[in-house]
């Protein structure tokens, strides 16, 4: 990827991080850790890869994205707002009783949300259904799903893995946000899902690895996924939970808690400094 574009995407991703943390801070509840770990891949997909139209969010042949780890919707909402699906200022209404921005994504309330998610394991199956629909209709749209590594503990994920491989859904790409942490701690201590790559391989998937915070790495993996025929692709993304906010990084405690005012100001300062640094390098 061209260096200038990479820097531009990094600036967008950090603005997305700011808005995600702001949404959680405004609600005094939500899931900042995982939102920060998926901010880059969501920015990359919506700005560089997916065919979507903010003015026509239900466009029939659009590419689809299902955030199976629905609790990290602050990042998805922020990307959708950046793309113009709805006003950015609405992000501050996140989780409020009068808001359409529910605690977990609601496809019937939020423009641009392709599937209501929140109950882990279900979104990825629905995404597989969308990919199957494209095959039935001979359409060339692609379907993406993002799962947590803790989410892999849900048995339904593996029912889905059998299904997508069985029906050779090569228009289907999933990203595993491998930040290594879930609510109760280290995924390998809570219920070890490793080896993630070998599991998907044995289910018949093309397996790729990527750095969740490196656009070149994400681009290479997505290009290879698109070129892969006859099987779905799982991209195992090594990521940092809480990425971009120093005190949230690699800390399971930030899975589902909101920052206080001092912490929020610190987070904004860190992200503003990063954005300023990136802008200066343009």
């Amino acid at each position, binding site marked *: 990827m061209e260096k200038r574009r990479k820097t531009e995407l990094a600036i967008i991703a950090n603005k997305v991080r700011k808005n995600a943390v702001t949404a959680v801070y405004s609600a005094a509840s939500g899931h900042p850790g995982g939102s920060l770990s998926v901010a880059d891949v969501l920015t990359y997909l919506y700005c560089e890869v997916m065919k979507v139209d903010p003015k026509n969010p239900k466009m029939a042949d659009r590419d689809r994205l299902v955030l199976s780890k629905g609790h990290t919707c602050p990042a998805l909402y922020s990307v959708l707002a950046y793309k113009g699906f709805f006003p950015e200022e609405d992000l501050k209404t996140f989780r409020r009783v009068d808001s359409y921005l529910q605690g977990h994504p*609601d496809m019937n309330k939020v423009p641009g949300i392709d*599937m209501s998610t929140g109950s882990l394991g279900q979104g990825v199956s629905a995404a597989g259904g969308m990919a199957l629909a494209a095959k039935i209709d001979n359409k060339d749209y692609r379907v993406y799903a993002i799962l947590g590594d803790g989410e892999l503990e849900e048995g339904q994920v593996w029912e889905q893995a059998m299904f997508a491989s069985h029906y050779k859904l090569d228009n289907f790409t999933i990203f595993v946000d491998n930040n290594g942490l879930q609510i109760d701690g280290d995924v390998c201590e809570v219920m070890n899902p490793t080896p993630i790559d070998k599991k998907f391989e044995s289910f018949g998937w093309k397996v790729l690895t990527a750095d969740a915070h490196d656009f070149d790495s994400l681009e290479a993996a997505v290009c290879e996924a698109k070129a892969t025929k006859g099987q779905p692709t799982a991209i195992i993304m090594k990521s940092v939970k809480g990425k971009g906010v120093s005190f949230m990084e690699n800390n399971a405690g930030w899975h589902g808690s909101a920052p206080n005012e001092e912490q929020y100001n610190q987070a904004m300062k860190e992200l503003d400094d990063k954005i300023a640094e990136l802008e200066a390098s343009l």
Partner: protein
Amino acid sequence: MAKKATRESYGAALVEYGKDERVVVLDADLSKSTKTDMFKKAYPDRFFNMGIAEANMLCVAAGLAASGKIAFASTFAMFAAGRAFEQVRNSIGYTKLNVKIGATHAGISVGEDGASHQCLEDIALMRTIPNMVVINPADDIEAQLAVKAAIEHDGPVYMRFGRLAVEDVNPADYKFEIGKGVQLADGKDVTIIATGLMVQMALEARKMLEAEGISARVVNIHTIKPIDKDIIIKAAKETGAIVTAEEHSIYGGLGSSVAEVVTDAAPCPVKVIGTESFGRSGKPAELFELYGLTPENIAKKAREAIAAK
């Protein structure tokens, strides 16, 4: 008259009304039993076996529906409403997606397979989900027209079909409407409100009561949700006593639904016939006797309801 199981009607209706190109059918390794194999034979490109993986199947159906399909998902009631309840709630009910759940082998009339396969809770479970329509057809024509209506209805529908062959209770020119109960016979002393295969028993009970000089109205409630409040309130007001009959738990099914309506709008004695325990292996007729799902018991409860006026 030839008897037919409503699962057979389901398979036939999928072939008939599945001409609509938007219809796709999923099954979880039970297509020979649920009769979706009839659709598979007619439209092999729109049938997908999902293996023994019901949770995934229901959510794949949701994804297909989100992409413009009318997605039917079939398995036994136990696994559709029971095992995959939360998938149905969150990915189909909450989303209001166009998924039609064809659940077969409901109730104790499954017979010899026993309690593990005799789903007596599905109506109660499905009824609690907002946006969900719940239909329990009584005979062949009603089951077929329910499938047609489900295709025409925009949103989730749960259809309950049986394994056991049942008699026709409706005429050949029968008109089916979701949410509209059917008065099959008039009466003034008591109303028997039945659903599914209990409707044929309600008609038999009516004959027994008639011989004793008791005039019983019979109402078929094929749509448990949304329920036809008007026909129930009218029955409560005009006959002053109600007996409900269902091949389902007495907790949360037809009886509960009817009681909710009359308690609010027209209080009267309501006797509820259904199950309270798990089922067991046996021939359907033996099980009906054992669990009180008989015309004799309906007639007995009718007398009790009249006495309680």
